[in-house]
Each structure stands twice: as structure tokens, then as C-alpha cells.
């Protein structure tokens, strides 16, 4: 499988990355190299092997349900571009 310039632009839009035509072309060839690598891996016969969700065969460690965090919002908000009444302010979004 290989990507068209339109595929690249669509992926860029979904990722909220602004790219021009020449960047799209460059990304297209880089991404296609990655797809070639995937194609090589796809050629391996995996019949009868269960898919893995993670590269290592280990399972998730669980944490006890207790509150361990304290309020640090002042420190976090000191580096935010805009804050009011404890809220982070962002450009208006209405769906």
C-alpha cells in the first residue's frame, strides 16, 4: 500500500498539522518508506499466532484506589498562556 498526496493531507488535517504541497510530497515519500517496512513485516506468516497488544508479554500493574495527589494548580497555571478564576482560557470552541 502506498499513500497519495491527498491521503497525506487528510492525515495532516486530522493531526492538526499545517503542511504545504512540497512538505506533503516530502512526507509522502517518508511515510511510504514506513509502509514498505510494514509490507515487509506483513509478509511474515503469522497464521495461528494470537495478536499482541503490547511488545512485551507482561500485564498491567494496578494501583490501589486512594487519593495521593494534592492541589498544584497554581504552579501548573503559572505557565499557562491565559487563566481566569482558576480556569484555563482557550480560543472559543463551539460545536
Amino acid at each position, binding site marked *: 500500500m502506498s499513500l497519495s498526496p491527498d491521503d497525506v493531507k487528510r492525515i495532516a488535517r486530522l493531526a492538526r498539522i499545517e503542511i504545504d504541497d512540497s512538505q506533503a510530497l516530502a512526507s509522502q515519500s517518508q511515510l511510504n518508506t514506513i509502509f514498505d517496512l510494514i509490507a515487509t513485516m506483513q509478509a511474515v506468516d503469522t497464521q495461528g499466532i494470537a495478536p499482541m497488544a503490547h511488545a512485551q508479554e507482561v500485564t*498491567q500493574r494496578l494501583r490501589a*484506589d486512594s487519593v495521593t*495527589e494534592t492541589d498544584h494548580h497554581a504552579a501548573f497555571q503559572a505557565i499557562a498562556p491565559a487563566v481566569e478564576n482558576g*480556569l484555563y*482560557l482557550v480560543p472559543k470552541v463551539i*460545536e
Partner: protein
Amino acid sequence: MKWETVIGLEVHTQLATQSKIFSGSSTAFGASPNTQASAVDIALPGVLPVLNKGAVECAIKFALAIGATLNRINVFDRKNYFYPDLPKGYQISQLAKPIVEGGVLTFLVGDTERTVNLTRAHLEEDAGKSLHEDFHGMTGIDLNRAGTPLLEIVSEPEIRSSAEAVAYARALHTLVTWIGICDGNMQEGSFRVDANVSVRPVGQAEFGTRREIKNLNSFKFLQQAIDYEVRWQIETLEDGGRIEQATVLFDPDTGETRMMRSKEDAHDYRYFPDPDLLPVKLDEDWIESVRNALPELPAAMQLRFQSEYSVSAYDAGLLTGSRALAEYFEAAACACGQGKLVANWVMGELSATLNKAELDITQSPVSARQLGALVARIQDGTLSGKLAKLVFEGLWEGAGEVDAIIEARGLKQMSDSGELEKIIDDVLASNQKSVEEFHSGKEKAFNALIGQVMKASKGKANPAQVNDLLKAKLQ
């Protein structure tokens, strides 16, 4: 043309854990903005999620309660989309291998039993809140809710009317609060319903095109939104239009649904397994210990109430509307051994009085033991139904125990037949006209005489006894 409605519901239940699903922040509702949002919740670079065992246990409880399959290995995925209240740029959810698959929910719609199959239930994190009030033309973001554990419960599209949808949602609400995995507070967003609605001509096998109504936070809105949407879809089709797949919002002020986004700009979520989280393994010992700790479930309790206390299926359904109500009923029924009579009192006088006072059963000034004692005094003939209501008022006011109120207010039903006979004789003597009318065949006159006797006894005579004695005397 006859149309059939097809509905599937997706319910987001906030799980009743102390801390968030992937961080140690508190999940308590109502804190000042962003004071319960840690580095993980606001997605600072380099942080890693650590899964909360309590959230997983809630999902196990739910699966056991609905007879679902628990995936012994389940996997978290990233669902990618951009929105300011989702600072990571993805929501951690479960797509291909959810923790719960299948299961059934059985409930009553009116008097008819219905069973709906569940597709799945998966764990995920809630997003933050966007506040669109005007902050100098900007939007305010509160991330306290970000990372609150959710169990999203998805039904098969087997629901056929708004009434069924509401009955299903109510039964699910009862169940998740019953087993203690969700506080059920709909005003606070703990239980939010999305409805997928489509219509098709009766007899057609394929489904029509569906529209999804998002974020309904009351049963009333769920009903109104579906009713409006179904009418709109049928009118559109009958006018020769087409339904486009879309996400819509319900506006409670107008009672209408309106388009939020069409399929054209529907999100492409690009799910993939979250490399920050390993597959979750559920071991059998854990599952068994959760199973052993589950309370008796509403469906089992309904059957038991019918057999042990001789209440109807309908009444048993009402009595198990919440665990607190069921426990109240059972305590009162055990206290006097009169299940049916207690059921009538719980659903009649007690519920009505609680409603009027805007209290729930846990706040009832009349305890289950007191109600049981009251019913016992009706059963043994001390109180008539009418007198019992007066005693109930006394209990409600906190005037003491049942027997003390009966004594203090002189509410004992007259059981001495000699005393009653004397009253009847007096009434007959002073109501000769009614007696004559009765003898000339006027049935109404008999009732008038009973009324006079009850009045003369100040309501304390036993009506059945009055009836018998009066009949005997008029022979």
C-alpha cells in the same frame, strides 16, 4: 405506512471510586476549578498512566451482575481527537478488547417483562469541562473531571419505543447504584445517556439510518428527545426526504433535537493500543472474591418478594426500585410478617408523604421498624385503616412509638362489642326514618346508618363489625 422505531442506548456511568482511573487525583464533585487535576490529568509531558484497581473492580461487579463475559485479558486503546477539554489529544478507552462483553438486562415496561441484550461495557476516562460563558471571547477549561473513570455500557439496538428506552435506562440506573459502582446522580452527570435512533417500515429487515442524540441527563429528556426524533424522522421520510447519519443535541427548552455534526465531519478517531498501558489481566481469585461480595440483585429480590411476601410482580418491581427502598420494605415486612399490607403502605401513604416533603426513603422520619409496628396494629384489629393514617401522622411528626401514639391520642379501634351495640341501639333509636326506609327496601338507608354509627364512635368502630352487628339488629 406503519413505522417501527429502533433504539440502542450508550450509557456513560461515572464510577464511584475515590481517585481517578489513571492518577491519584480525587474524583469528588464540585471542587474549585482545576484543583483536582494532576500532572497526569492535564497531560504534562513525560507522565504515565497507572490503572486504578477500584475502577477495574467496578467493571467486574457489573459484568457479574448482568451475566456478561469478562475478558480475562483486556486492552486500553487511544481514541484520538482534538478538543481543549482533552489535553492529551486522545482519550484512553477500550475498543477491540473491552473488559465486558454481552450480558442481559431484564425489566418491566408497564406489566410486560422485557429483556435487552448488552453489546459491551468498557472502561475509559472522562474529559474535562468546557465553559462557554464569555471569558473575553474565550472558553474556560476545568480539568477536574478529566480522568474520572467511566464505564460505557452499550445495548444492542433492541429497544422499540421511548417508553422501553426509559424503562431500560431506569433498570440500568437501579442496577449500577444497587451494586455500588455509580452514585447515579444525574444532575451531576454521573449517569449520561446517548440514544441511537432510527426508524424503518414495519417488516423491513435492514435498519434505517440512525442519528445519535448525545448527553441526555434525565429520564424525562430521554423520553422527550426520542419522541421528537422519531416524529421528525418519520415526517422527513414521509415527505420524501432522506435521513443523514448525524450526531444531534436535545434542547430541553424547545423540546427539539438539532444537528451537532454530520457524518461528513464525523471524527476519525484512529484508535490504536495505548503503548503506555499493558494488557489488563483479571485473575480468577479476584473475580470470585468480587462475586462473593455482591449483594442480592434486584431481579432475584423481586422473585423472592413475590414468593416470600406474596406481593405482585408489579409491586415487587416498584419495591426494588432502589436498594434502600427494598431494604426498608423488607425490614418493615419482617417486623410484622405482613408483606402485602406493608407493600401497600410503603408504596401508598409513605411514598406519597415522602414525595410531598421531597425526601427519599433514606430520609424517612418513619423508620421501617415503626411502619412494621403500625401494620401489626392494623393486622391485630387495634387500628382501622383510617385510624392507622392518624397514627402514621403521629409517627411522621416524631410523636413517639406506635402504641404510645395510639394510647396518647385515644386512637384504639373499638373492639368491645357491648360498647358498640349500645352505640348502634342509640343510632337506631334516633334514626327511625332510616330504619323504616331500610325495611321498605332502600339499601342506601343501611349505608347512612353505618355512617351514623361510625360518626358516633368517632371513627373508632371496626367497620366490618358495625356492618355485621347492624345487619343482625335490623333483621
